[in-house]
């Protein structure tokens, strides 16, 4: 019985952390955000060097063949450094969908390129994951897609997209396909690229070598666990920044960190967020080892980290006082990252309904 990380996992997470400390500094994040870079190239190359895009890709296709828990540990550090590169769709959701539902040819074509970082993939499943808004939804007829999909993840740098249709089928679409119109969306979080796809009878390859509904659910579960891990990492950075600031900032001839009013805010943030780490670990572990619990735990991880993440984001900002509210300090990049994590792939309310449904509650 061992509930914890292996030495290898700690080392891997540490090495990515040390790299990101250097390459994904606040200054770099700021330039990427201001220029709306969908993929900060130097940061991306550093991560490619460490094998991050190929983490989940089978070794036969040039990846590392690791598990979702390993991917969650990386998502956590990417959140910690509000890293402006594709990851959750491109390196987690799409490789998993291809591995589960792709033909041999599709796998041979795309998995090695995804693993090497040569290709970036987006995921257009928002209508199935979070519900349809603004008339979103894609219809597949005779191998062609029509309609639109909003809130596409890892959008701007994507060379291919995995698209969910209204009937639960998944399709592979080339970013340059005829009839495909791409519209960037501007969210609060400029560290990640989100957009909208319009399909006018667009050529697509179906992903049909397996149960598509189950494959879509796996993409969704994995994506939700990654968003939870991203919030865990971003949230802890906000706590660390609040604690450091409170030890420096003086008012009334004392550091504000010696006031109980301020200390208690920091203690509450830590006490609320830290158990979420174990929930994320278990959800990621269950994804591979306890499949019967995967959807339940992914839904719990997503909704719970969204709730405590929001609390940490506002509380850390308050500890920073007026400075926390400025653009100059840059704390808002974390605040906004957590804000986007919360809504993507289903709000906490939606995730809790999924958790209830898989337990047989409220379905009568």
């Amino acid at each position, binding site marked *: *019985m*061992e*509930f*914890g*990380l*292996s030495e290898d996992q700690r080392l891997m997470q540490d090495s990515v952390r040390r790299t990101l400390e250097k390459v994904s500094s606040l200054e770099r994040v700021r330039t990427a955000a201001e220029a709306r870079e969908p993929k900060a190239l130097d940061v991306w190359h550093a991560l490619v060097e460490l094998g991050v895009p190929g983490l989940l890709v089978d070794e036969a296709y040039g990846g590392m063949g690791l598990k979702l*828990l390993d991917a969650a540990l990386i998502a956590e550090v990417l959140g910690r450094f509000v890293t402006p590169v594709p990851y959750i769709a491109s390196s987690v959701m799409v490789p998993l969908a291809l591995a589960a539902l792709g033909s041999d040819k599709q796998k041979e074509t795309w998995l090695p390129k995804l693993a090497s970082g040569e290709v970036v993939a987006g995921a257009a499943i928002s209508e199935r994951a979070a519900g349809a808004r603004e008339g979103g939804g894609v219809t597949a007829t005779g191998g062609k897609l029509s309609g639109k999909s909003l809130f596409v993840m890892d959008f701007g740098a994507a060379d291919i997209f995995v698209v969910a249709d209204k009937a639960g089928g998944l399709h592979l679409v080339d970013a340059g396909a005829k009839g495909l119109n791409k519209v960037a969306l501007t969210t609060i979080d400029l560290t990640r690229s989100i957009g909208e796809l319009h399909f006018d009878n667009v050529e697509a390859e179906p992903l049909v070598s397996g149960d598509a509904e189950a494959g879509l659910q796996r993409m969704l579960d994995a994506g939700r666990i990654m968003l939870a891990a991203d919030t865990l990492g971003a949230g802890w950075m906000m*706590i660390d920044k609040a*604690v450091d600031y*409170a*030890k420096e900032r003086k008012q009334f001839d*004392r*550091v504000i*960190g*010696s*006031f*109980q009013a301020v*200390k*208690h805010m*920091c*203690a*509450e943030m*830590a*006490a*609320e967020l*830290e*158990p*979420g*780490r*174990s*929930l994320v*670990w*278990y959800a990621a*572990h269950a994804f591979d*080892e306890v499949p019967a619990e995967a959807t339940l*735990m992914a839904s*719990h991880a997503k*909704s*719970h980290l969204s*709730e405590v993440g929001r609390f940490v984001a506002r509380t850390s900002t308050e500890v920073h006082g007026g400075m926390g509210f400025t653009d100059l300090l840059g704390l808002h990049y974390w605040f906004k990252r957590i804000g986007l994590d919360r809504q993507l792939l289903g709000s906490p*309310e939606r995730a*809790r*309904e999924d*958790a*209830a449904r898989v337990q047989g*509650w*409220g379905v*009568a």
Partner: protein
Amino acid sequence: MDLAYSAEYEVFRAEVREFLKKHKASAPKGYGMTRPSGGVLAWQKLLIANGYAARTIPKEYGGFGAEPDILKSRIIAEEFTAARVPMGLSGQGISMFVPTLLELGTEEQKQAYIKPTLNGEIIWCQGYSEPGSGSDLASLQTKAHEDGDDFIINGQKIWTSTAKTADMMFCLVRTEPNAPKHEGISYLIFSMKTPGIEVRPLTTMTGHAEFNEVFFTDVRVPKTQIVGGRGQGWFVANATLKHERGMLGDPNQAGARLREIIDLMHSETLDGQRLIDNPLYRDRLVQLQSRVLAMQFHGLRLLTASTKGEDAGLARLIVKLQGCEINHQLAALAIDALGELGVLYDDSPHLRAGGGWQQRYMFDLGLIIGGGTAQIQKNIISERGLAMPREPRPAKA
């Protein structure tokens, strides 16, 4: 991450199950606030003999004498809970006084007290808090002055659970009035039958007297009844408090309570609809389920850290605060799901669970306050977990 138990532990689990199957019929239903009955004492002896109670206490002091093994202790707890069979006796004597005596007592004290305490023959109560000394426990004023070979105790204790039934008290008293406050305290043990002790039940907001006040008027105790030396009481007590904090906020208790609420929401209806099918209550249930699961996995993480001898640091410091809060919120949800039925109490018609949800809701607020208030917990988390500075002390007037 490997959540399976190795073969050695699975064998051990099978032994525990076998024991429970064989002896379940003779197990008591539970323990009340009264003195243990003959049946309870016999059950306790059986548990000790088989290593399911007093497991790691040395044989020479009446325990089972096994090497500490956190996983085996956990397996015992899991299997007893699953079989709905009560574990061995607990209470402040067994869970707090015995570990303290083992660590800091004299050989004579160990011989005299540990075995009968483990067997349930001596019941203990804890005399720490005073009306003027709660969070600032070290300011306590109950005095013990020297008189030959004895101390004479005068003062008052409060929040003394089981004082009515207890045979003995372990008590903090001020023996060195001129020493700094942390260095003037001694840890004394004495019989509750000693002349000059008066116990008054303390009725709480629940309507029950779960606690007492204890008054001392010229209570004479031999000096040999000190544990750990004169003026050392604060350090002895901290060894004991460490054991108490571990007991409060147990996530498995929250897990059991969550299951009760899930059952309740399946059986109770509102306008003919099961509560579990009501989206508002269901959403609150799932929110709390997330929190309970997070704390249960957090507990497993701490368990693993303990087996490896690692200090979990901040992760351990948050358990009392979070665990007690979640228990309180669970009781609150049960009350809200029951609505007007949820406020019925005592012996009212239509009463649910004997009024237990209200009783727990109120009592849990007591637990949020007791055993180190939530605010003291936050001081500990921020100072020891996050290395934030202490509040500066005001200059003495």
